[in-house]
């Protein structure tokens, strides 16, 4: 793995091409769909748990690191849903806003029940009048799920080699648009929307590129979409991003909407189980 020479705490460990190949080879046909759905589930759970976006983002990146740095058989032990729950629990525990295991279990029970608003769980959409009994967690179920959560937490920690620090692009992006002199609420919003969407991308953008590159690409796409004119020159070079990386990421951010639509079409009327 190539050493990184930039400031340590602005950068993340990156995936090697071998790890990416291994992941690709070990994944079943709908691997991309499962990872896309799992990231959405994690994001939704984080929102219901009222966690800050940074914690949610950390959880998703840890989940992605676990995918690439663990062996396939390590990933068999638990369902994608439990891995999602364990990482959000872990990320919250390390943040300033920890959540109780009971809250996590309740939220995941709700999000995977018949009452869930998530389309891949309920392709017909959530019922208008959901029955609370559908997502009620009995004491026995809670006890079992809680234990499962703790074991899964350990498995994740071992899988990622106990390295739980994640550098995120959000504050960098804000700084960059200020530096570029185009800071505005609408642009910042669009940049954040792209950064948040990028977390859901099955392309594991946070493992292939450093935060500064993600920030630059999100700004590039967002500025184009909101019609904000940036300086003429190759401004991304100022932020140490070359044209090739920028091109890749711009495509990744730009194509995510299409990918999401294709996924929706593919799973129309079919539930994708993460259990």
């Amino acid at each position, binding site marked *: 793995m190539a050493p990184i020479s930039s400031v340590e705490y602005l950068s993340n460990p990156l995936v090697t091409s071998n790890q990416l190949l291994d992941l690709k080879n070990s994944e079943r046909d709908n691997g991309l769909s499962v990872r896309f759905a799992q990231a959405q589930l994690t994001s939704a759970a984080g929102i219901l748990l009222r966690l800050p976006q940074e914690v949610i983002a950390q959880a998703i990146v840890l989940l992605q690191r676990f995918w690439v740095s663990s062996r396939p058989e390590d990933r*068999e032990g638990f369902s994608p849903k439990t891995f999602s729950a364990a990482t959000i629990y872990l990320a919250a525990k390390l943040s300033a806003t920890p959540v109780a295991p009971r809250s996590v279990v309740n939220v995941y029970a709700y999000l995977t029940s018949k009452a869930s608003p998530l389309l891949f769980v309920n392709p017909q959409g959530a019922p208008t009048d959901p029955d609370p009994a559908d997502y009620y967690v009995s004491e026995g179920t809670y006890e079992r799920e809680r234990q499962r959560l*703790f074991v899964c937490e350990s498995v994740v920690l071992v899988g990622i*080699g106990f390295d739980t620090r994640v550098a995120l692009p959000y504050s960098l992006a804000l700084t960059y648009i200020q530096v570029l002199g185009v800071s505005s609420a609408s642009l910042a919003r669009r940049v954040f929307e792209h950064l948040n969407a990028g977390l859901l991308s099955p392309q594991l953008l946070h493992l292939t590129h450093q935060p500064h590159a993600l920030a630059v690409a999100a700004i590039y796409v967002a500025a184009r979409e909101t019609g904000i004119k940036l300086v003429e020159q190759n401004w991304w070079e100022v932020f140490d991003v070359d044209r090739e990386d920028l091109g890749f990421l711009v495509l990744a951010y730009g194509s995510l909407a299409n990918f999401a639509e294709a996924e929706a079409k593919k799973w129309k009327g079919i539930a994708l189980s993460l259990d």
Partner: protein
Amino acid sequence: MSRPGTSLSIAQQLRKTTQLGLEEAARSLDKKHVGNNYTSKVKIGQKYNIIGFISSGTYGRVYKAVEKNPRSDPSSPVGSAAPKELYAIKKFKPEKEGDNVQYTGLSQSAIREMSLCTELSHPNLVHLAEIVLEDKCVFMVFEYCEHDLLQIIHHHTQPTRRPIPATMIKSILFQLLNGLYYLHQNWVIHRDLKPANIMVTSSGHVRIGDLGLARLFHKPLSSLYSGDKVVVTIWYRSPDLLLGARHYTPAIDMWAVGCIFAELLSLRPIFKGEETKMDSKKTVPFQRNQMGKIVEILGLPRRENWKGLADMPEYPQLQSLVVSRSGMPGGLYPNPPTSMNRGGSGGGANNGSGLETWYNNCLRHASYPPDKSPGQRGFQLLSELFEYDPDKRLTAERALHHEYFRNTDEGPHKGEIWVSNNCFEGLDEVYPHRRVSTETNDIGTGSLPGTKRGGLPDDSLLPAAKRR
């Protein structure tokens, strides 16, 4: 320096020992039976022989251990096994179950320490060999360091007081600052520097240990203060913390370095205050006694020299300290006239005279030979570390370039900042090996009998007599 880019490869190293365990965990799940514990096939007891118990603290216990089957060099002749390496295994106390507090998985501080330790790597930080997860227990396996500063200081008081050689102090301090500079550069504050946490290997290398309280400070989302209320053992706590600083800075570590420097010179803690315990309302009390000890030597902090002083939460308490002191004969407020003539001394210190007197007394008692004395440069360094204003206090980087570390010996490096990385270099003194107790060698994952502090206490020199 370690790069984040290598973290995943560290992950692989660490995983070597736990992979088998994962298979077992996965198998037990196949049988539709989820164990309540994370099961690891490589048990700590199978890989390491526990030689003895070293110390315990609020986090858990530390054991001395040796690897059972070190990977011997296959090319070496039969019978000459590789020398067995020693390790210090830190076992985190399992979070208590029952007692209202429910088990919540691995503890936050353990995960934080593991995360920091896997990423950080520096010759002056204690080296982490591996992490073993077993049931609900975390074992961190560190390289073994034969000495720590507490023990070295203690050795110099027995049977009579003998000063620590000036060259050794210089080397220890330089290595300590070097490790700290690395931590601070990586946005980590140690928060619990004290002699007991500073290890020294038998080859004289200094290793900063116990990152259990260390925190990242590059992005304090919520006040660091509210997270874990009290940090830094009281004798080494900086005035900004004592006065209630909410957002503290690496400067608190630098104050602790000053305290350690002073303790290496005088062989006793310089500000040995008594801790005021938290009251029933769980509010953090003002540490009046500790602040008083500092004021006794350094004089009162002044608003002219410390811009934010009046805004400190406990500033009114400091005022009351003034009132209670001014009545005393020779009180420090208003300043006695003698301290007006402090000449060129003091550097940035607010009231150098008290410290200068302390320092000169200290050197006199130690009776260093004139050519081997910490000298006035040592005093300069100390006074700049004991700067009241955290913004003006010496940083680790500037401290490393301090004149104190300039080499004055004849030789190729004369006139450069040149300090040996072996603090025992040129010394005949033999330091006793770390005492380990063999009574409690059970490192099992069961509940710990008596997690009360025993052995080497974390924050007190007093029971030193008991350890003999």
